[in-house]
C-alpha cells in the first residue's frame, strides 16, 4: 500500500469531477464559488426586503404622531428589519458570500474543506429567511431584534417562528465557521505560511471561530426562549422564578461577537482594496493581522456593556467597561494603518476604492461614538435612545454595508468576467454617502436630547430633524437601487474584465475570471506576502493557468 507523499499545506488536493446539468451545477452545487454567489444573491434579496422595512420606519417617523402604520405594526416592522439585516444580510454576505468566493482562491485551495457541508449550510439560509419574513403572517415579533423577555414571551406566535428562523441561520453560520477554520488551517498552498496569507484570509481566520462558538450560545438562548414560549418551561418569566436578565446575558454573549463577525470580514475587504488601488503594501501587515485576532478574542469578554442599565451588579459593570475600552485600541491600530497605507501611494479612484475610503470616514465616526458608549456614566444617559440607533447604523451601514459594496465592485469582475460601470458606481457612492450621513448624523443629537428608541410616535419637538432624516434616507435607498441596477446591467453589457482588471497581486487575480470549477490547474507554491508591488509575483506553478491547457483529471470517486 503506497503511502501518499503530500506537500505540506495543500493537503486536500482532491479534485471533484465537473458537475453536469443545470441543477447540480447551479442549484445544488458544491463549488465554493457558486455557493458564494448564491449567498450574494440571497443576501441582496433580503437586503431589499429589509431595506423596504427601513423605509416604512422612516415614512412613519416623518410625523410626530404618524399614522402610516399602527403602533403594533411599527414594532413588528423594526423588529424584522433589525433581525433580517443582522442575520439574513450582513452576516451571510460577510462570511457566506465573500468568505466562500474569495478566500479559498486566495489561499490556493481547490475548494473548502467540506464542500457538501458548505452546500448544506447555504441551503439552510433561504428557508430560514422565508421563515423569518413569514412571521408577519402570524404576527411578527414586536420586541426588536433583541427580543427581551418578558415582552418576547407575550409576543405574537411569529416570535416562535423568529426563534426557529434565527436558530436555523445560526446552525448554518456555525457550520460555515467550522468549514472555514479547517480550510484555513489545513488547506493553504505549499509555502503559504500564516504570515504570507492575504489579510482577507486573516479576517476570515479571526471570524470563523467566533461564528462557530458564539452562534452556538445563541442557539441555546433561542432554544430556551422557544421552549418557554411553547411549553411553558420557565427560564425567563419572572413570575415563575426565571430571570429576564439571564436572556440578556445569553443573547449578548452571542451578539457582541456577532457584531465583530459582521465587521472583521469587511476589515479584510478593506485590507485587500486599499493596497491594490494605492499600489503599495498594507502598512503594518502583522499589526493588522494580529489586531484582527485580538479583536476576536476580546469580543467574547465585553458582552455586558449592553446591560449597564439593566440591572448588572455595579461591581460587574467595571470589568466590562475596561475591557470594552481596550477593544478600541486594536481597532484604532487598524484604522491608523489603513490611513498610513495611502501615504505616498498611487491612488486610483475606482468605485471600490471610493467606498473603502468612505468606509474609513464613517467607521471612524461610528467607532468614536462606540468609545463614548463604553464609559458607563455616558451610557446611562445614551442607552436605549436614538444615540444608540445612530452608533449601530454608523458601524453597520457606514461600516459593514459600505465595505461589502466596495467588495462587490472589487470582486464582481472575478465573479462574472465583466466590470461594473464605474460612472454609475461613482454616482452610487456619493448618493449613498450623502444619504447615509444625512439620515443618521442627526440621530446622535436627537437621542441625547430625549428621543427614546423603538417608538412609533415621539415628542413633536424632534419632528423637523426626523423629516430631514427621512428625506435623506430616500436618497440612500435610491443609491442602493442604482447599485442593484448596476449589478444587473453589467452582467450583460459590462466591459470585459479579463483575469486581472485591477492589477492586483493576490492569487485569485492570477486565474481566469470566472475561474474554472477546479480553481488551479496546479496548486501554486507561495514565497512571500502578495503586497510588494515592486517585486515580481511571489508564486510558482501558475504558468498554465491562463492558457487553455486541460485541467487536472478529476479523481475517481471511491
Amino acid at each position: 500500500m503506497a503511502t501518499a507523499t503530500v506537500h505540506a499545506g495543500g493537503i486536500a488536493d482532491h479534485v471533484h469531477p465537473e458537475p453536469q446539468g443545470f441543477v447540480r451545477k447551479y442549484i445544488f452545487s458544491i463549488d465554493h464559488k457558486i455557493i458564494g454567489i448564491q449567498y450574494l444573491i440571497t443576501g441582496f434579496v433580503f437586503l431589499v426586503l429589509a431595506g423596504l422595512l427601513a423605509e416604512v420606519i422612516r415614512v412613519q417617523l416623518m410625523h410626530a404622531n404618524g399614522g402610516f402604520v399602527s403602533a403594533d405594526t411599527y414594532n413588528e416592522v423594526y423588529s424584522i428589519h433589525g433581525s433580517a439585516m443582522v442575520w439574513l444580510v450582513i452576516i451571510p454576505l460577510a462570511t457566506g458570500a465573500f468568505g466562500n468566493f474569495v478566500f479559498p482562491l486566495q489561499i490556493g485551495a481547490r475548494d473548502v474543506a467540506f464542500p457538501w457541508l458548505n452546500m448544506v449550510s447555504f441551503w439552510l439560509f433561504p428557508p430560514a429567511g422565508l421563515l423569518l419574513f413569514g412571521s408577519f403572517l402570524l404576527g411578527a415579533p414586536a420586541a426588536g431584534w433583541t427580543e427581551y423577555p418578558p415582552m418576547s414571551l407575550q409576543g405574537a406566535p411569529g416570535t416562535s417562528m423568529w426563534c426557529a428562523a434565527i436558530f436555523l441561520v445560526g446552525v448554518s453560520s456555525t457550520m460555515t465557521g467550522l468549514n472555514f477554520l479547517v480550510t484555513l488551517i489545513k488547506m493553504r498552498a505549499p509555502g503559504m505560511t500564516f504570515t504570507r496569507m492575504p489579510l482577507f484570509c486573516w479576517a476570515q481566520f479571526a471570524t470563523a471561530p467566533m461564528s462557530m462558538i458564539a452562534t452556538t450560545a445563541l442557539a441555546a438562548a433561542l432554544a430556551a426562549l422557544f421552549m418557554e414560549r411553547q411549553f411553558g418551561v420557565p427560564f425567563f418569566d419572572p413570575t415563575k422564578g426565571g430571570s429576564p436578565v439571564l436572556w440578556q446575558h445569553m443573547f449578548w454573549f452571542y451578539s457582541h461577537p456577532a457584531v465583530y463577525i459582521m465587521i472583521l470580514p469587511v476589515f479584510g475587504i478593506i485590507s485587500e482594496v486599499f493596497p491594490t488601488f494605492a499600489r503599495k503594501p498594507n502598512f503594518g501587515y502583522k499589526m493588522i493581522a494580529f489586531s484582527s485576532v485580538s479583536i476576536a478574542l476580546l469580543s467574547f469578554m465585553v458582552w455586558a456593556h449592553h446591560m449597564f442599565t439593566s440591572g448588572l451588579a455595579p461591581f460587574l459593570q467595571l470589568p466590562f467597561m475596561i475591557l470594552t475600552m481596550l477593544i478600541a485600541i486594536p481597532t484604532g491600530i487598524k484604522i491608523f494603518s489603513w490611513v498610513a497605507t495611502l501615504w505616498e501611494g498611487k491612488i486610483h479612484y475606482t468605485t471600490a476604492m471610493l467606498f473603502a475610503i468612505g468606509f474609513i470616514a464613517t467607521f471612524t465616526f461610528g467607532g468614536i461614538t462606540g468609545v463614548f458608549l463604553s464609559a458607563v456614566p455616558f451610557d446611562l444617559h445614551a442607552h436605549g435612545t436614538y444615540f444608540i440607533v445612530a452608533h449601530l447604523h454608523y458601524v453597520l451601514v457606514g461600516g459593514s454595508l459600505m465595505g461589502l459594496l466596495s467588495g462587490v465592485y472589487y470582486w464582481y469582475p472575478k465573479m462574472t468576467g465583466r466590470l461594473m460601470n464605474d460612472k454609475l458606481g461613482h454616482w452610487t457612492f456619493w448618493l449613498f454617502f450623502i444619504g447615509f450621513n444625512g439620515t443618521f448624523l442627526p440621530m446622535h443629537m436627537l437621542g441625547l436630547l430625549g428621543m427614546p428608541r423603538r417608538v412609533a410616535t415621539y415628542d413633536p419637538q424632534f419632528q423637523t430633524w426626523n423629516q430631514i432624516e427621512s428625506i435623506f434616507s430616500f436618497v440612500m435607498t435610491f443609491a442602493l437601487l442604482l447599485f442593484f441596477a448596476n449589478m444587473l446591467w453589467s452582467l450583460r453589457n459590462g466591459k470585459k474584465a479579463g483575469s486581472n482588471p485591477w492589477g492586483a497581486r493576490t492569487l485569485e487575480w492570477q486565474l481566469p475570471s470566472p475561474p474554472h470549477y477546479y480553481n488551479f490547474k496546479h496548486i501554486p507554491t507561495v514565497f512571500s506576502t502578495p503586497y510588494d508591488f515592486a517585486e515580481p509575483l511571489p508564486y510558482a506553478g501558475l504558468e498554465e493557468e491562463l492558457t487553455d491547457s486541460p485541467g487536472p483529471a478529476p479523481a475517481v470517486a471511491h
Partner: protein
Amino acid sequence: MENRDPVVHLDRNFWIVTAVFAVLSAISVWYFGTFDFVALLPESAAPAGDIDALTRFLLMSSGPLFVFVIGYLLYFTIAYRVRKSDAPDAIGTQIHDSHSLELWWTVIPTIFVVIMAIFSVKIWYNIEVAQPTGGIAVEAIGHQWFYTFRYPNVHGEIPDAMHLEVGVPVTLHVTSSDVIHSFWIPTMRIKADMVPGLINTLHFTPLNPGTYKIICTEFCGTLHGDMEKQTVVIEDHAHFTAWYNGWVAKTKNASDAIATTSAGAIPLAGGSASAGQALFATKCSACHKIAPFDQKIVGPGLKGLLDDPKHPNLVDGQKATPENVAAIIQHGYKGDMGAMPDMTANGLSDKDIANLVAFLKNQK
C-alpha cells in the same frame, strides 16, 4: 524579515497640512470645551453636571483624533492620486511598516483609555454605589404604560408626577410590575431599567426646581411611546412637604391606599351618558372607535357593545353586561387581543366609569 523599506521622507506639504490639522483640532477642542450643554438640555440633578463634564472630555479628546484621521485620509487620497502623467504600472513607495509610528499609535490611545476609565469610574461611583447619608428613599414602579411611586409611610402607590425636594439626596429603587420598562430622566442624564423581580438603585441629588420629563427607553408594548407623559417635579421644601403631607393624609389608613386597581365592583347607578361621551373622546378614542367590533385601532370597535349578536361575550370571555364592561375598564385587560390600561392609568374615578358605561349602553 529585514526592513528593506526606502527611507521615509516627509515632504514640506505634509508638515503644512499637519499644521493646518493642528489648528483645526485646537478649534475643535475650544468649541467642545465651551459648548453649552445646559442650553440644549437643562441639568436638574447632581450627576448631570458630572456626566456633562465626562461628555465634554470625550468630545474634546475625540475632536482632534477625528480631525487628524479624516484629515490625513482626505489629504493622502487627494495628494497621492495617480496622475495622467504616471506610467500605467506606476507604484507607490513600498514601505511596509515603521515600528516607532506603530508604537506611538498604540501607546497614545492606551493612555487616553486609562484617563477615560479613571474619569468614568469616579462619576460611576457616586451614581451606582455611593450611599448618601440621610435623604429620602423613593421607589418607582413601572406598569404597562405608566409609572407609580412609593414614598416612606404613604400607603399604596402614587400614580401621578414624582415630587422631589431640592438638595435632598434621593435613593431611587426602581422595579416593574409586569414587563421590562426603563426609567430615564434626560435632564438628570441617568436611567435604570425596571426589571420585574429585580430592584435597581440610583443615587442623585435634585438641584434645579422645575418639571422634567420621565421617559421609558425599554420597549414595553403597544403604548411604549406614550410612556413619556409623566414628569418629575423638583420643588423647594415648602411645596414638597405640602404635596407629601397631602398624600400622607389622603392615605392615612391602609384601606384607602390607591392600589393600582381598586378592588370592589363599581356602582353604575346614575351614570350620565353625556359626561361619558366627553370622557370617551379624551380617554378612550386613542384606542377605540364607536364602530363595529372589527374596526380596530388598538382595541376593538365598541358600537353595540352590549347587544352584538356576533360577539355575545367580551374579549375576556365574560358575558357582555354593563357590570362586566365596568370591570374591564376598572382592571384593564391583557391578552392576545393586546393590552388595555386599568382605571388608575387612565386616571378614571368610579363616577367616570359609571358615566362611560352609561354612554356605551346607548351606542346601539
